[in-house]
């Protein structure tokens, strides 16, 4: 079933078009929005989460029209949303922070609400710190707290904006496990600029560039875009779109390979950099 049908969405801030004809169709499973900073991912997720209206374009979420007050409320009842800068009152305990959101999500029966809060805190392994103040939680714990509130009521749609930002590698791995599990039987839309996240958890991927989608498919299909365009050499090849040093002294190149080049299997990152063009790819090459 298609959970999200967004067609030709436009959202402008003054002269800047954050969304410039964005089209996205998402179904059950984890769909990753991959793109550089400023590509429009956060704006798109805000529109999908019904907190920001697009200027034009068609949008249906969970079969509802979010521009209609009744439809919007219906979507919000079945939505879990983790914004990019998810904050909580720092004086709240972890339990109180999630309980506050649970009240707003219409969990009115106190005992049942508290059980639900306990359930989601346990899901993200924060059950043991339920009585700790938000200000005393680590960044990773706060991020998981954000996910906990999104999971309240077991919603069929989860919208997660950069959920792995600021996490150390171990926390990121745990978070990916959580998101993968959350993606069983529901739709998860997550934005990231890390190709590893996409490879680890996403069943579908949309590459976003300058407010529009430039690729939609599976991670494997994305990687295959770079088939025959990735090679390694002992020295850096100036003809490559980008090249960077990898282990054992080799240079990894993307672009049009020279005759006789030693081709290697492409990764999602290779294809992503090729899609974004020489400027982004060059950035990767210089950073390496």
């Amino acid at each position: 079933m298609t959970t999200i049908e967004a067609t030709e969405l436009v959202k402008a801030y003054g002269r800047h078009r954050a969304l410039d004809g964005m089209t996205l169709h998402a179904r059950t499973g984890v769909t990753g929005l991959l793109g550089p900073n400023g590509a429009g991912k956060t704006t798109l997720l805000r529109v999908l989460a019904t907190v920001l209206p697009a200027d034009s374009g068609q949008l249906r979420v969970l079969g509802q029209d979010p521009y209609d007050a009744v439809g919007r409320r219906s979507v919000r009842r079945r939505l879990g949303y983790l914004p990019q800068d998810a904050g909580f009152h720092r004086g709240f305990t972890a339990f109180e922070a999630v309980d506050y959101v649970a009240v707003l999500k219409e969990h009115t029966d106190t005992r049942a609400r508290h059980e639900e809060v306990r359930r989601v805190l346990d899901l993200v392994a924060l059950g043991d710190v339920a009585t700790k103040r938000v200000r005393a939680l680590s960044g990773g714990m706060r991020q998981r707290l954000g996910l906990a509130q999104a999971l309240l009521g077991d919603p069929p749609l989860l919208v997660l904006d950069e959920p792995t930002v600021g996490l150390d590698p171990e926390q990121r791995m745990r978070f990916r496990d959580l998101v993968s599990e959350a993606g069983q039987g529901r739709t998860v839309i997550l934005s990231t600029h890390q190709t590893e996240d996409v490879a680890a958890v996403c069943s579908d991927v949309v590459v976003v560039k300058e407010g529009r989608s430039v690729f939609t498919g599976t991670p494997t299909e994305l990687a295959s875009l770079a088939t025959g365009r990735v090679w390694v050499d002992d020295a850096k090849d100036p003809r490559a779109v980008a090249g960077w040093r990898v282990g054992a002294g080799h240079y990894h190149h993307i672009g049009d390979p020279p005759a006789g080049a030693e081709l290697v299997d492409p990764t999602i990152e290779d294809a992503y950099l090729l899609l974004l063009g020489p400027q982004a790819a060059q950035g990767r090459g210089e950073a390496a």
Partner: protein
Amino acid sequence: MTTTPWHLDGELAGRYAVGTVGPVLAASVEQHLVACVPCRSLLAPHVDTPRLDLVWAEVLEEVEAPRPTLLERLLGSIGMSDATARLVAATPSLRGAWVTGMSVVLALSLLAAYVADNGVAVFLALAPVLPALGVAAAYGPAADPAHEIVAATPYSAVRLLALRTAFVVATTLVPAAVAGLLLPGPAHLALAWLLPGLALTVGTVAVSTWIAPHQAAAALTVAWLAVSLRALAPRHDPLLVTTTPVVLGCTVALAAAAAVLLVQRRDIADVIRRTA
């Protein structure tokens, strides 16, 4: 001298589980169970798991669940549901810092009314602004770090804003009214700030459907102060801005217009303005 190791048998475990052993023996059994894994295993089949789960749930509820604050208990006593009371109690502007700040402003403006020429005008200019600022501090991205999460919940934004506005106004009204009663001059001065206060508050809520509440309050406050502080000029009557029929009429009209706008734009208030 050594003591013979003592353990529970099946019969004693069963009697202990149903509570038919005497208190002394029960104490011995409990002491022993703390250190003896095999005996705990012997007792395990007798444990009433559903009851144990229930007890554990009660313990967790007691330890983890938020304790109702004094305000929540007060609201509960006037019939408000505990869920709604939580939303009101989470209002930033109902916290100590706001109440302290508001009291200081009132005290200073009251002092000005006694010691300065036209000092009453200072009070009449500042008092109406307080509830509007309180509302601005009660809702929106600047006041609530969870605002974007809150905006994506099905709870009506206008209802939440109205709920918090009502309580902020109520809590501001009492100290401002008390301060008004202490003003030098005619008795009606105590009430002279109420209408502009109402207009500014409703206006802030209505304008919040276009811009963030703190921006709305700031804009209206500046506009109000620009008008009202003209009364500080020696040639003006300090009551000019609040008690002449024209000003009163305009204030009522503004409050009514803001209320109508708010009702018309309640759906628009349900989504956020740009927060970043």
